Structure formats: C-alpha cells, structure tokens
C-alpha cells in the first residue's frame, strides 16, 4: 500500500511537470530587454569529502566522507547573460569516530557555512554554470574528553553546473553538481543537489 502511494505520487508529479512544461517555462536565459528579476535557488542533497589527508592516520579507517548539504542562493537576473548573487547554506565535510589508548571513544565532525559571491551564465536554455568565491565559516564539533566546538574562517570558492527543468514561467526544478572548496584549510566537497528555483521578484 505504501509502495502504491509512492507510485501514485510519482505519476502525479510527472503529470504536473509535463503539464506545466507545455507552456513557456522557466529559463535562465534573458527573455526580453529591460526585464529584471531576483531568483532563489533552494537546494538540498548529499556530497563526498574529496580532499585527501582529512583524518589523522591512526583514525583513517573510521572516517565517513559522506555528508549532507543544504544551500540557498539568490541571484539577480538582469537582461543579459551574466548574473550575480550570493549563496549560503550548511554542509558537513566529514565525520569520524575513534578510541584512545584506554578505549575512551570520541568523535569529530567538521561542518561549514559558506558565504559566497557567485556568477552564473546559462550556456543553453536549461544548463547553467556557476562560479564564485568568498569565505567558509568552518566549525569543529569534538566530543572527546568533554564537548568542544571551535570555528575558523577560510577563504574559498565554488563551481557548479545545473540543469533546470521548467515547472512554470517562474518556477523550475533542477539538479546541480557542485564543487565547494575551503581553500585555506584545503577542504573540498563534491555534491549532488536537487534544486527548486523560484523567480520571486520581477520588475
């Protein structure tokens, strides 16, 4: 029964998307001169910590390189190809657990909140490239011999490519592959995200 419900929901979603895309749908390419808008990209997904040497040698077998990522991006879409905006969010680079010599256990999680200025351009009607730079607010969560959290700011950058499928003139559903790199601390993360795109202000 539960499986059938999922199937019904999937078909309903597919029907809705198909129905919406019959009309002129969302695109990141400029449509006419003098049209400006603000577009929000709300994304969530998972990623993989790809920078090597992330964990002390003695703990390397216990690392989990997979982390979650959620980001919000607001871009100004003017009437030309290049757009600019800001992105922030939250991601977990990696976690690991360990035991010391007397078998006391502990764990470490490294997370980050990026704040990046980004540029984007639609290379086709539905495919977009993003690149940006800024800072990552990194946070260590340590639970061993007491709980400790500690923060550090690192300069960094990102690059991404997305495919946006229009749902309506102002809304799209997309998928994005993104590389995020806190350069100063050499922490890199590749992620795949599902994305809701909403053109929320036009003038």
């Amino acid at each position, binding site marked *: 029964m539960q499986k059938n419900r999922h199937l019904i929901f999937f078909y309903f979603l597919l029907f809705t998307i198909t129905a919406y895309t019959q009309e002129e749908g969302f695109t990141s390419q400029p449509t006419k001169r003098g049209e400006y808008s603000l577009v929000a990209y709300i994304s969530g997904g998972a990623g993989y910590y790809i920078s090597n040497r992330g964990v*002390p040698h003695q703990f390397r077998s216990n690392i989990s390189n997979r982390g979650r990522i959620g980001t919000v991006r607001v871009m100004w879409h003017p009437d030309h190809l290049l757009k600019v905006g800001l992105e922030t969010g939250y991601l977990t680079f990696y976690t690991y657990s360990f035991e010391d010599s007397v078998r006391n256990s502990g764990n470490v999680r490294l997370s980050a909140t990026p704040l990046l200025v980004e540029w984007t351009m639609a290379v086709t009607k539905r495919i977009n490239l993003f690149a940006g730079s800024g800072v990552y607010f990194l946070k260590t969560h340590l639970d061993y011999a007491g709980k400790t959290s500690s923060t550090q700011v690192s300069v960094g950058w990102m690059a991404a490519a997305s495919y946006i499928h229009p749902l309506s003139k102002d809304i799209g559903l997309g998928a994005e592959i993104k590389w995020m790199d806190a350069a100063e601390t050499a922490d890199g993360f590749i992620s795949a995200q599902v994305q809701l795109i909403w053109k929320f202000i036009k003038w």
Partner: protein
Amino acid sequence: MKQLITIAYILLIVTSCRREFVAPVPNTDWDLFNSPTAVRLTRLTMNKMEGIYSFGAGADVFGDSTALKWSYTVSGNDTSYKLSMFCEKQAAYFILEGKRLDTSILLNGYWRKLVNTETGRVRLTINQVNGSNYLISPSPLNSNNKFAVTGTFSYGDAVPDRPVNIQYNRSLNRTTPFQIIAHRGGGRTADILPASENSIEILKLAPQLGSTGVEIDVRLTKDGIPILYHDARLNERLVQKSGLLGPIENYSYAQLNTIVRLKNGERIPTLRDALITIVVNTPLNLVWLDIKYHGSLQTVAALQAEFQQKANNMGRTLEIMIGIPDEEVQKNFLALPNSASIPSINELSPEKVIQTNSKVWAPRWTLGLQNEEVAAQQAQGRRAYVWTLDIPENIQQFILEGRFDGILSNYPSVVAYYHYAKK
C-alpha cells in the same frame, strides 16, 4: 581550436595542483661502516677532527670551506655522537657518524641544503695516507700535522659516486662565548627538516644543526597546560589534518594529545616534556621560552625554576629564560613574585630591559647592528641576542661587524659556519 582550448584547460588544472615538497633523509646503509670490526671513535680523535676545512672536489656543490663540529644526544645510558659539517654554500650541512676501522676513520651520513630540497648520501674516509694516524694517536695535533678527508656523495638514495674531499686548515673560532640559537626548537617545518618545528624530535636534532641554544614557543591549552606551538591556530602549515580547527587554546591537552599530530607525525609536546628532553638528552645550554599567550606566567615560571634546578643538580650548563616579546607579557612577567630574579630575555627597549632586570636584550635584526646599544647592555653585565637572522649575507655581516652575544636563526647551520669560520 576547441581541442587546443581543452588541452590548455587540462594543463591549467594539472599545473595548478599543489606541489608537495619533500626532502627525506636518505638511507645511509654502508656495509663497511657497519662491519663488526669498526669501533667508535675516541673523544680525543673527535676533538682533533673539529676545525675549518677547505673543499677540493665538491666545492661547486658545497662552497669553498666548511666547519666540522661534533655534537651528541643522550638516550638512556647511550650517548650518540654526530659530526656536522656546516658549509658555505646554500645553507648546506652534513650529518655524519664516525667509526674507526683499523687505521682508517670512516664517516657515514647524509647532506642537505636548506635553500631547496637537495639531499643525498655521503661516505668519507680518512686513511693513513691522509693523516688518520695523527687523529688516532693520543698525542695532540701540531701545526705540521696535515690531514684530509676523501670520499663520495650522491643525490637522493643513489649509491655515492661523486668525489668529494676536504683539507684541514685551522681550528674553530672559539674566542668569545657565542649563542647559536635555533628558532622554533631547531628549525621550521616549512624547511622540510626530518622533524617538525617545536617537537621533541627537533630538539634532539638541534645540536646537529649547529645550535647551542633553542627558542621554543609556549602556549597554554584550555586546561592550562603549557605546550610548544607557534601559531595561534591549528592549521595545515603545522599539523596534519584532523578536523580540529581554530585557536589551539580552545582544546584541552588530552584532546590535542590524542587527536592532533604535527606535520611529521609527532605529538604536540608539553613544555615539561620539552624541558626534560633538553636537560637530559641534549648538550644545549640555552632555552628561550617565547611566550605566545597573554595570561599568567606562573605555571611557566614554576617549570623554569624546576628544570633550572634539575640542570644545576646534574652539573649541566644551562640557562632557561622567559622571553618577553610585548608589553602585555612584560606586565604578566612583572606580576610574578620576585620577577627581578627570574632569568628573562626582553625584546623591548633597553629601558624595559632594566625594568624587568632581564639578563638578555633581544632586538630585531632590522634595527641594525646597534653596536653602541649592545655595548651599553654588555657594560651593564647583560647580553644581547639578535633575532631572526636567516639571510647568509646578513648573518655574515652581524658576525663580522656586530657585537651581539648570540643570533637567533631558522638556519643555525649558517650561523655556525660563519661563527666558527670567523678569523
């Protein structure tokens, strides 16, 4: 055209990857040196070998002359002696072990240049033809005794096959007491030495690099344990990645000791462990505690007093001094009970040196030779050390024209060369 652009992008990505620089200590196995009939050199032979030598073969790589000096480290009941050769060119040095095989003296080890990653193996011999009998005999050297060292060196782990030879010229300059003080316990991690800066291992290496004293950086952990660490934060320059970031004082010693490793895999040492090593395992005779935090100095002062007493009890010539790098540390130093009697090194003005009754005034080298100011300090019964001199030309100038009683450097081998070669 598109293919060219693609290739250009690939090249850009490949060449923009971070390059790892390494200079591993070469394998120094030498069957002849390890033969069971090879025996340790006597102290007299070792003493007679010390001196200034001129290069014949090998001068193009190591410069025209070199200073040979023995040092030792103690491990339990065993004392191991190393012969260092401090060279004129490109901060090159050799670290060698010595043995006698019949009538020959064998020297085996490696060389390294600190200005790059060049390193390699060395095998040297002093045979009877080249004067080994003068060195082995119990008689002192006289000016007619000529001897030379011949052998081969290589790059990396290759079997040594390039000729090198040096000829004894004169004895080492020992006219005035002079401190060769190694920065960060012996040298910087960035110079890819075999041990990380501010580690126990670099303290043991420091005498082989030419140091007579060390400067070590002191910070406090969250639970108030004095440790050796230079930077304010845990960072990739000094430690292996661990996920622990931010100010080091955010973490307790237990957390750092279990999780964090320095670049070469060592633990961050406590000041106590470092002082035990210096007192027990090395011949170092000066410790400059560079205080890197703002807070009470009581724990550090207590350790200083404890280990000064230990060194005195062991008959060791050793001074442990608290460094005063800024006004805040000076305020905390003056807050200590009987601060005027605590040995200290003051980096501030000569007036501040009087306020803290410091034994040493330590100005930065960019202020120049300051011969008059140095002489004024010496007239008051104090010493003057200058920091941090790394450029060979500057080191040479400060040694030849200056009046300082010591130089702090990341390249103690260069200071050692110019000091011992001074005529």
